[in-house]
C-alpha cells in the first residue's frame, strides 16, 4: 500500500568484512530470507529482509558477518519511543491490527528475578545431594483427601480408596504445548524423544498427532482446543493425558489461526482439514459458554476415554485468576496449567501480547492459596507456564505453589532458536518453525533431542543442588513453601499477594 513514509529505517544491518570473506557463499545458501545474493563473484546484501536469526553468522567459517540492531537512530524520546512511532507508521499505512511473534516484549519487571532463594547455614544442615537422595519425582493428578483401608481376615491391610490416574514425572519440567504445523515434524520428534529420555511429557498443541509421534504417544499430552483440529477418539486414546486448552497467556480471550500456507499435505492429514485451508480456532470453545458447561466437556472427554487418563485444562492468567482456577478445579479436571502473560506464541496481536494478562508468579501463588482455602488443593495439580527461562524459575514457581512447569521457548532455544520472533513467516532458518522440507531437514532430531534432554538434565541437577542447599530433600516439601523465598525490592502489596516475606525478614 502506498504511503508518504518512504522506506523505514532498517531494523537490522548485516555487514560482511570483505577482508575476511572468502566468498564461500554459505551465507547465500543459509539465509532463507534472501538477504544475500551473488552478483558475479561478489555477494550483495539486502539487510531489509534480515530477521536477526543468526543463521548466516553461525555458518560463516571466517566470522566475517556482523549484525547490528537498529543501525539508524531516531531522535530519542522517552514517550514517543521507536516502537510507538513504528506502530503508528505501520497502522496509518495499513489500517490493520498488528500481529507479532514470540512472547511479550513489554519492559516490565520480572518478579522471578526479585525472589531470592534460601539456603541452610548454622541452624539446620544442608543436604548433600551427592550422598543423600533429593527426590524430584512428581505425580500430576488428583490425590485422595483421605485413604480408606480394609483389613483382610489374615490381618493384611488393603487400600480400598479408588485412586484416579496420575502422570509420573521424573523431573517437574515438561515440554509445553506447541502444535505440529506451527513447529516442524523434526522439532516435534526431537521434543518427544527428549521427553522420553528424561522421563517427562510433552504437549502436542492443538495440531493433532502425526503418525511419526505414535512411538512416543505414552509421553504425549494431547490437546483439545476450540478448533478441535485433529481430535477424534483415536487421538484421545493415544495420549497419556488430555489437555483442554481454554486460554493462552500470550493472547488471553482470543482464538488462534494457522494460515493456509502452513497447512501442508502432512499438516492437513494431522489436523484433518483440507490442504492450504486456514485453521481457525475460535476464541471460546463453542460448547462452553459458561462455567457450568466446562464440567460437561471435562466429563465428556473422561467418558470417551473410560476415565483412564488425567484431564488437564490450560487457562491464561488474567484478573480474578484465583476464582478462575477454583472454578476449573471444581469442573473435575486433574491438573490446571496456568499460562502467564509472558507466554510465547507463533503470532499474537501485539496489544494482547504486551498488555493483557498477569504474571505467572502472581497467578500461581494466588491459585495455590485459593485452592488451599477452598480445600481443593489435592483435587488438582498446578502447572506453571509462560516464560520459564531457567532452573531457578522452576524452583521459584514450585515454591510459590506449582507442582510442575511447562517450558516452551526454552525448549526451542535448546534446539537452536534465536528468538527472532519471525516464526509466522514459516521460513525458520533453524528448521524449527517451518514446513519447508529443505529447512526442516536442517534440524536433526537426534542432535536436537539430545540438546533438549541436556537442558532438562542440567536444570534438574541445578534444582537438586538448590534444594539440597536449602535442606529440602523432596519436591513435596518445596511445593508452596513460600517461607524459602524472600522478595527483594518488591512492594508491600505484591509481597502480600504472593504471601512472601521481604528480604531480611
Amino acid at each position: 500500500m502506498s504511503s508518504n513514509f518512504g522506506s523505514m529505517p532498517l531494523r537490522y544491518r548485516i555487514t560482511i568484512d570483505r577482508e575476511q570473506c572468502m566468498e564461500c557463499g554459505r551465507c547465500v545458501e543459509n539465509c532463507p530470507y534472501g538477504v544475500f545474493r551473488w552478483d558475479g563473484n561478489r555477494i550483495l546484501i539486502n539487510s531489509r529482509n534480515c530477521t536477526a536469526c543468526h543463521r548466516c553468522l553461525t555458518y560463516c567459517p571466517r566470522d566475517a558477518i556482523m549484525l547490528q540492531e537498529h543501525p539508524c537512530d531516531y531522535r530519542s524520546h522517552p514517550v514517543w519511543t521507536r516502537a510507538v512511532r513504528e506502530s503508528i507508521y505501520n497502522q496509518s499505512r495499513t489500517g490493520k491490527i498488528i500481529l507479532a511473534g514470540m512472547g511479550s516484549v513489554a519492559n516490565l519487571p520480572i518478579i522471578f528475578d526479585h525472589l531470592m532463594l534460601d539456603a541452610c547455614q548454622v541452624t539446620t544442615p544442608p543436604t548433600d545431594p551427592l550422598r543423600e537422595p533429593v527426590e524430584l519425582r512428581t505425580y500430576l493428578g488428583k490425590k485422595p483427601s483421605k485413604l480408606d483401608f480394609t483389613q483382610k481376615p489374615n490381618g493384611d491391610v488393603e487400600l480400598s480408596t479408588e485412586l484416579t490416574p496420575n502422570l509420573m514425572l521424573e523431573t517437574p519440567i515438561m515440554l509445553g504445548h506447541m502444535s505440529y504445523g506451527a513447529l516442524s515434524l523434526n522439532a516435534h520428534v526431537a521434543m518427544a524423544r527428549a521427553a522420553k529420555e528424561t522421563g517427562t511429557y510433552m504437549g502436542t498443541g492443538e495440531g493433532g498427532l502425526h503418525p511419526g509421534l505414535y512411538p512416543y504417544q505414552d509421553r504425549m499430552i494431547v490437546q483439545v482446543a476450540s478448533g478441535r483440529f485433529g481430535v477424534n477418539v483415536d487421538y484421545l486414546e493415544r495420549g497419556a493425558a488430555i489437555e483442554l486448552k481454554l486460554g493462552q497467556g500470550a493472547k488471553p480471550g482470543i482464538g488462534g489461526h494457522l494460515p493456509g500456507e502452513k497447512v501442508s499435505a502432512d499438516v492437513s492429514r494431522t489436523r484433518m482439514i483440507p490442504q492450504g485451508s486456514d485453521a481457525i480456532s475460535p476464541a471460546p470453545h463453542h460448547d462452553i459458554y459458561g462455567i457450568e458447561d466446562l464440567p460437561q466437556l471435562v466429563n465428556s472427554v473422561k467418558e470417551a476415554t473410560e476415565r483412564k487418563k488425567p484431564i488437564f485444562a490450560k487457562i491464561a492468567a488474567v484478573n480474578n485468576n484465583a476464582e478462575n482456577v477454583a472454578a476449573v478445579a471444581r469442573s473435575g479436571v486433574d491438573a490446571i496449567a496456568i499460562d502467564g502473560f509472558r507466554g510465547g506464541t507463533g503470532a499474537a496481536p501485539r496489544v494482547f501480547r504486551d498488555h493483557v494478562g498477569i504474571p505467572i508468579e502472581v497467578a500461581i501463588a494466588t491459585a495455590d492459596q485459593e485452592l488451599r482455602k477452598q480445600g481443593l488443593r489435592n483435587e488438582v495439580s498446578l502447572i506453571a507456564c509462560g516464560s520459564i527461562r531457567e532452573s531457578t524459575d522452576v524452583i521459584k514457581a514450585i515454591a510459590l505453589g506449582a507442582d510442575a512447569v511447562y517450558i516452551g521457548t526454552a525448549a526451542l532455544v535448546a534446539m537452536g532458536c534465536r528468538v527472532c520472533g519471525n516464526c509466522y513467516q514459516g521460513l525458520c532458518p533453524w528448521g524449527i518453525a517451518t514446513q519447508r522440507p529443505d529447512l526442516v531437514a536442517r534440524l536433526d532430531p537426534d542432535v536436537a533431542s539430545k540438546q533438549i534432554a541436556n537442558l532438562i538434565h542440567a536444570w534438574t541437577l541445578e534444582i537438586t543442588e538448590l534444594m539440597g542447599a536449602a535442606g529440602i530433600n523432596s519436591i513435596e516439601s518445596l511445593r508452596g513453601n513460600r517461607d524459602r523465598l524472600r522478595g527483594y525490592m518488591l512492594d508491600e502489596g505484591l509481597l502480600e499477594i504472593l504471601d512472601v516475606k521481604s528480604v531480611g525478614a
Partner: protein
Amino acid sequence: MAKQVTIDAKGVHYTPLNQQIRKAIEDGADEIVVNNVLGQRFIGNGLRGNATIRVNGVAGGDLAMFMSGPTVIVDGNAEHAPGNTMDSGKVVIHGSAGDAVAHSMRGGKIFVRGDIGYRGGIHMKQYETQRPILVVGGSAQTFLGEYMAGGLLLVLGLDGAMKAREIGSGIHGGEIVIRGDVDEACLAAGAKKLPLTDEDRARIAPVIREFAADFGLDAEPLVKANYTRIVPASARPFAGKYTWE
C-alpha cells in the same frame, strides 16, 4: 442373528449407564435399546463399531460426542450439542435438540426431525472423504453454521418459518442449504447467497430421501422444493484484519 440388549436407564447415573452400553458393544450386541432415559449425558460417547443404540427418552448433553461408527436413534429430544466432534456414524433425533448441535463435527450424519437451538452446525469441518451432514426438519435458531469450515447443513423448515438470523458468521467452508428463500438481512458478514443449481440439487437429493425415509415423510416434494444455498464469501474471512510488526 442380530443380538439385542435392553438396558433400563431409570435412576442410573450416566457413568454406569455408558459402561453398560460400552460393555454390550464389546460383547457383540448389534442393537442396544436403552429405556427410560431421562437426561443422562454422553450416551454413545467415543464409541466405535456399527451397533445401533436406541435411546427411548430424553438424551442429555454431548450425545454421541467423538462417536466413530455407531447409529444412535433417539425417540425423544436431545439436549446440548448432540454429535459434538463426531467422527462418523449417524444420529437420528425424532424430537428437537438443544444448542450447538453438530459442534465441530467432522463426519457422519445427524438428522433432527424437530427444531434445533442456537449455533447449530458451528465449526463443522470436512477432510477428504469425511464430510459431515446435519439435516434439520424444523427450524434452526440464530448463528446457524457459524465458523463453518466444511460439510452440509440442510434446514427443511417443515413446521413453519425459519428463525435463524446471523447465518454463517465467519463461515469459511462447506454449505448451508435452507428450504425457501432467505432474507439477505439474515446472513452474517462473510456469508453469501447463491441459487441452488441442478448439480447442487442432485447432490442433496439422496440426503433428503434418506431423511424422509427415516421419519416417514414424502421425499419428492422436498427434493423438488425451492432452496437457498449459503456459502462463504471468502475462504479466509480474517485475512484482511492483520498486518505484521
